[in-house]
């Protein structure tokens, strides 16, 4: 099969408009006769469901949570990018496009990224019209802040809860359509299989998580919006239930999986504290606007800090190593995430880490508090305020900006980050890889679409901060609703899809067999035991730095864990009831396959690019070294059985509007 990205011809700035003008559309009367299934209700799935229903399609939306409002988009903190140029700092669609391609280390599809930048401006308008309470300045206009990897302020935010507010906006748009009967909502339902009829996606099999009932649902098209697969590492900043199952099921049914090894390890997370840990918590990257990252300059000091014999506040300014400012003077603490994460790992590996595990660096707000305090004192007209007063005023400003994050940190660590620097360490956060899609966001299965984090399309090998929300909403509000019409225009005479066909019957049988098999093992180890074991291998050998030897080992080891899982997993309870262990088991079974493909992809890509760092491919200064000659392509894997035996298809990446350069943030 040949990969056809279906990127329209013509100048990059005209592609999307031209495409919209020339693709087929479905008339209003016909839309009423067409059903669309959307799996996942985060920013991508929620906004897509609402928009498709507004247009007149009949939407069935599915989520495993008890309400669509709980999808993990809700946890995004920092903000959403848009090329509005409200700050008059020279921002433009082109600049957002350029930053995103560069930030992705030149491994994204140019045309998709340009379209993303183009529609970014509409997103902000749309959300404000929906009543999303973005932060505003005293003139009543929208406020912006800056994020890593860029030199302008284009990030819109709602305190530290931007994802929550945007998701509740999409949720409210969904609610309006649910009330009208245009969206039928299936809460506490999990998609467990895709159904294809005549090669086209025509429905899904779902499991009702309350009753255990296996259900058939048909539609003319299926949209997967189920998020990323960071939980393959067990410990990540994802929600406990975030999973790869929907994506993996369509992969097994013929959808190619692209760049699985591109994972974002986010630099500012709360360090892990012990074996009991079930998840990691992110502290928004926006903190790097004002926080300065450092470790002690002397190893002896670091040692004393680890033993709690020395406090960070007692380390003198000249004995601190602000290593990001030192290594990257132009971008400083605002280098992209992959660069910041690796730099933290480098310092900790060299013995400068600051908590008892040796895996943490400081994020210090003292400078910012003082600066803001002085500014505020000036505004208030205080002449010669005391240091105490300045700190007090400064803390109030910092609290206004990041209050909820500071509170969250204090709850977890039991230390006051206003008084002592935060400790942070990188953690798995986002997966740039995902299901391969063409320009229309359709997978290699006709009628099966994939949007948001679940697809691979816009972030290349590294995502810039505040771009995930932008992509989720762009796909759902402004891209898919148009492009899906092109495909559905062939379906206006099809009529309702029956669920009584052999294809639905077979798919249902397959699901029931798998569930029975899992429950009948009655082994000795819990589901979490396998998940943790897989996560350790992934983090150790396919985490922040990777090499051939480690990846070969990982592939073998994952195969072993998978084998053990299918002979020794212990799942209590039965199928026909709420059974949380059975839910987890299904998800972990899929992670155990994805993990192997992930390692295989990392093994094959012998260059370093963005979040994918191969130790064999680095510059003398230890920066990621790309190999454009051999690797300027997207890896799209075709499933044939054993994950590591998948067939590699290459989509060549062409850069006509941006010159390929080695990334530099110095």
């Amino acid at each position, binding site marked *: 099969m040949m990969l056809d990205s279906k990127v329209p011809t013509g100048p990059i700035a005209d592609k999307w408009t031209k495409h919209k003008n020339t693709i087929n559309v479905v008339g209003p009367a016909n839309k009423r006769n067409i059903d669309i299934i959307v799996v996942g209700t985060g920013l991508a799935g929620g906004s897509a469901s609402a928009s498709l229903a507004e247009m007149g399609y009949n939407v069935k939306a599915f989520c495993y949570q008890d309400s669509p409002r709980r999808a993990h988009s809700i946890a995004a903190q920092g903000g959403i990018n848009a090329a509005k140029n409200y700050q008059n700092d020279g921002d433009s669609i082109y600049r957002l496009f350029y930053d995103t391609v560069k930030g992705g280390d030149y491994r994204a599809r140019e045309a998709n990224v340009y379209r993303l930048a183009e529609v970014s401006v*509409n997103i902000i308008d*749309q959300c404000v019209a929906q009543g999303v309470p973005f932060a505003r300045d005293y003139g009543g206009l929208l406020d912006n802040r800056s994020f890593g990897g860029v030199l302008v302020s284009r990030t819109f935010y709602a305190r530290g809860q931007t994802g929550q507010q945007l998701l509740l906006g999409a949720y409210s748009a969904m*609610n309006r359509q649910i009330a009208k009967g245009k969206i039928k909502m299936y809460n506490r339902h999990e998609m467990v299989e895709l159904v294809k009829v005549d090669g086209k996606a025509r429905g899904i099999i779902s499991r009702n998580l309350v009753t255990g009932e296996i259900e058939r649902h048909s539609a003319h098209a299926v949209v997967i919006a189920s998020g990323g697969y960071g939980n393959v590492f067990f410990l990540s900043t994802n929600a406990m239930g975030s999973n790869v199952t929907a994506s993996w099921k369509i992969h097994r049914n013929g959808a190619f999986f692209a760049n699985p090894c591109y994972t974002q390890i986010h630099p500012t997370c709360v360090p892990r504290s*012990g074996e009991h840990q*079930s998840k990691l918590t992110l502290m928004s990257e926006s903190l790097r606007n004002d926080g300065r990252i450092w470790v002690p300059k002397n190893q002896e000091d670091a040692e004393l800090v680890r033993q709690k014999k020395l406090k960070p506040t007692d380390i003198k300014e000249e004995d601190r190593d602000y290593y990001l400012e030192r290594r990257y003077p132009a971008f400083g603490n605002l280098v992209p995430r992959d660069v910041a994460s690796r730099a933290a790992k480098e310092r900790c590996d060299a013995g400068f880490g600051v908590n008892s595990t040796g895996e943490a660096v400081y994020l210090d707000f003292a400078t910012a508090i003082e600066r803001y305090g002085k500014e505020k004192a000036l505004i208030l007209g205080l002449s010669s305020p005391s240091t105490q007063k300045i700190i007090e005023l400064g803390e109030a400003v910092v609290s206004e900006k990041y209050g909820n994050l500071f509170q*969250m940190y204090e709850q977890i660590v039991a230390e006051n980050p206003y008084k002592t620097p935060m400790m942070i360490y990188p953690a798995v956060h986002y997966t740039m890889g995902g299901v391969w899609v063409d320009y229309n966001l359709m997978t290699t299965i006709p009628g099966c679409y994939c949007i948001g984090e679940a697809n691979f399309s816009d972030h290349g090998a590294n995502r810039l901060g505040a771009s995930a929300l932008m992509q989720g909403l762009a796909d759902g509000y402004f891209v898919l609703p148009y492009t899906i019409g092109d495909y559905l225009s062939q379906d206006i005479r099809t009529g309702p899809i029956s669920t009584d066909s052999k294809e639905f019957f077979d798919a249902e049988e397959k699901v029931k067999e798998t569930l029975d098999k899992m429950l009948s093992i009655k082994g000795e180890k819990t589901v979490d035991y396998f998940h943790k074991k897989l996560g350790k291998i992934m983090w150790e050998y396919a985490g922040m730095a990777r090499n051939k030897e480690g990846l070969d080992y990982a592939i073998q080891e994952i195969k072993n864990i998978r084998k053990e899982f299918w002979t020794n997993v212990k799942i209590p309870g039965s199928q026909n009831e*709420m059974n949380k262990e059975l839910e987890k088991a299904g998800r972990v079974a899929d992670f155990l396959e994805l993990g192997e493909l992930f390692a295989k992809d990392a093994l094959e890509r012998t260059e370093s690019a963005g979040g994918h760092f191969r130790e064999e491919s680095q510059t003398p200064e230890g920066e990621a070294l790309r190999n454009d000659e051999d690797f300027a392509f997207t890896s799209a894997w075709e499933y044939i059985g054993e994950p590591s035996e998948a067939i590699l298809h290459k989509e060549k990446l062409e850069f006509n509007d941006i010159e390929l350069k080695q990334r530099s943030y110095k």
Partner: protein
Amino acid sequence: MDLILKVWRQKDSRAKGKIETYPISNISEHSSFLEMMDVLNDKLIEDGKEPVAFDHDCREGICGMCSMYINGQAHGPSRGTTTCQLHMRSFNDGDTIYIEPWRSKSLPVIKDLVVDRSAFDRIQQAGGFISVNTSGNTQDANAVPIPKDDADKAFDAAACIGCAACVATCKNSSAMLFVAAKVSQYSYLPQGEVEAKDRVVNMVEQMDKEGFGNCTNTGACEVECPKGISLEYIARMNREYVKATLIKEK
């Protein structure tokens, strides 16, 4: 830490539930409450027993999925905290901890500690939105300035996570804090004005239909709300409601 857990067990919505006792040991004070529950479940599975079903997802206090009544308090003893953010350092070695589901007729138990909060969704569907279709042609986001104070207050109201701690803690099982938060968010924004009257009337009507009680100004909801949603919003909703019903044109 060693603890005695008293946990509500109930097979399904129709079954009769009861409190079971589980001793548990070697819990780290740094672990979260739900991580402690993970340890309990691991142990129960190992012993061939059914693990305790409970709702949870993001484990960082924002999705609103977790919902436990701990020692008679919604989300446990800490203020401004969801159960998933509660840490075991808030308890003492040797403590006995009672863990129950939310209790309200309108939030029926599905299993063990899992309750059905779909009533909340239905209230939102009755009017918790602004009727604007997706289009690339809404007016520019900065076309209508909104005073910072109003935007901030709208945000404070919008911070509600829909966990239903307010209902669980209220002696009347009132959902007014939840409903008021949404009504107030839109009432502070010019975009919300157009449908303000219908919104408040329809949402309140649905709230009553779901069987939630009324507010008698006890204020427990505000105290237990993990996001600190203010009781003032209930007053604001009442004002909106009176405005809508006294001078409703339709």
